[in-house]
């Protein structure tokens, strides 16, 4: 499942996975909500075509971190950022970079499914049109629904049912399809299963496993077992700092930092 030969590193050295090429890299990334520092000099390379899980106790900065990767925090007042987020070696916070384009190429799925109150078809087609796609819309909708493992369940109801008519698990896969429709390279998932039952969760986890063939996935989860099941690499955050990053098997079988071991064995958090 993971490349065992790869070395695990702990901060403050730049957390990297060595053998894998990284597509996205946080470099000395810090973030403040007003005077409150939420991220403290995070340096982390996200390996391409792998699933990277971010774990840590509530308030450790994991959601803040992934929202920083595609500039979602721009929308929050009083947020200040220092450091860099390099996507294909270009800083997404560079003045010349269009944040809308960043969010298209680095898509996001949220904790609670948030489909539009429109038809299943329109849930995808709308985003496509907004992002400048005007041809082969039906084809793109089908492809995205197939990639999100939802096509077979909804193909006969594309225009009959709305996104809200679907079950919670289907709604979340619809949101994943919506993110995939605009052809991102990276998919950020912020606790995508926390509102789902175990069966729907299992389907999303299987889907994440499939998605890494074509996409790079970063998933925030408060569920350590989920991180262990779905990810290739795991980063442990605590109090806004990256404590440890490495292959998931090593993190869960032989973490190098005591804080990590204490957290994953339930001694705190």
């Amino acid at each position, binding site marked *: 499942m993971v490349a065992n030969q790869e070395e695990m590193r702990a901060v403050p050295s730049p957390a990297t996975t060595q053998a894998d090429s990284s597509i996205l890299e946080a470099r000395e990334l810090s973030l403040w909500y007003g005077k409150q520092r939420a991220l403290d000099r995070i340096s982390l390379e996200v390996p391409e075509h792998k699933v990277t899980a971010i774990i840590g106790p509530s308030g450790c900065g994991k959601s803040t971190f992934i929202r920083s990767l595609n500039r979602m925090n721009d929308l929050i007042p009083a947020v200040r950022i220092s450091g860099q987020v390099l996507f294909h070696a270009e800083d997404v916070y560079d003045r010349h970079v269009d944040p809308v384009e960043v969010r298209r190429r680095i898509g996001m799925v949220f904790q609670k499914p948030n489909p539009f109150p429109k038809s299943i078809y329109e849930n995808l087609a709308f985003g496509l049109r907004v992002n400048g796609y005007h041809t082969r819309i039906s084809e793109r909708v089908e492809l995205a629904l197939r990639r999100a493992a939802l096509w077979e369940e909804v193909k006969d109801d594309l225009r009959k049912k709305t996104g809200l008519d679907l079950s919670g698990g289907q709604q979340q896969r619809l949101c994943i399809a919506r993110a995939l429709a605009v052809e991102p390279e990276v998919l950020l998932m912020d606790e995508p299963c926390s509102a789902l039952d175990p069966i729907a969760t*299992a389907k999303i986890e299987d889907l994440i496993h499939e998605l890494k063939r074509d996409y790079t996935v970063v998933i925030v989860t408060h569920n350590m077992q989920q991180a262990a099941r779905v990810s290739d690499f795991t980063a442990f955050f605590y109090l806004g700092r990256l404590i440890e990053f490495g292959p998931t098997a090593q993190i869960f079988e032989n973490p190098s930092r005591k804080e990590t071991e204490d957290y994953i064995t339930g001694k705190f958090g």
Partner: protein
Amino acid sequence: MVRESYRQQLDGLIESVYDMGQRVMEGLKMGLRALREHDRTLAESLDEWDETVDQSALEIDKTCTDLLALQQPVAVDLRLIISAFKIVTDLERVADLAVNVGEYSLVSEAFVLVPKEELLQLGEIASGMLSDSLEAFRTKDVARAKQAIARDRVMDQRCWDLRTEMLTQIIQRAKHAHTSEQAKRIAGNTITVLWSIRDLERVADHTVNICARTIYWLTANPEYI
């Protein structure tokens, strides 16, 4: 639960254990052939073969550890992993015993005490039981596992009979030992033959263990763990 990749990993674990078992089976047959044909080269080649078996055991242990740490298996899946851990240890020990059997062939004069053919028949029973235990594991066949366990009584009886026959011969031969050198040789040969019988009996015992682990995996009966 869907968890397709997890299911594939579990299926892969079954195949890996079975494949390791097949290799151990081949090694056991090599050991028996070395004994039958007094083939020193074949006997000596078993050491290197044993290292590859040990390596397989380590790899399967790692797979089991990863599955436990990363997938949180429960119920039948958990029992499979517990069983696989133990079966791998049994197989690794059978491999060590196969090496021993090969090494006994280097003491050819030991087998004047009992007909070598009788010893090889014990080997046949043990390797047949090993084969059945592996098939029972791979095909999830509780009945076949129980049948293999039942054959152990036959094996134990044959081992007992052979030991008795051998000791009777030794007592008779010892009467004719004129020098302490001759007596020592008889004692040495006796030990070699006793160990070879004991090792084949142990192979059968390990196959009983493999069957028991399989039954535990499939039925959750704690008596078989």
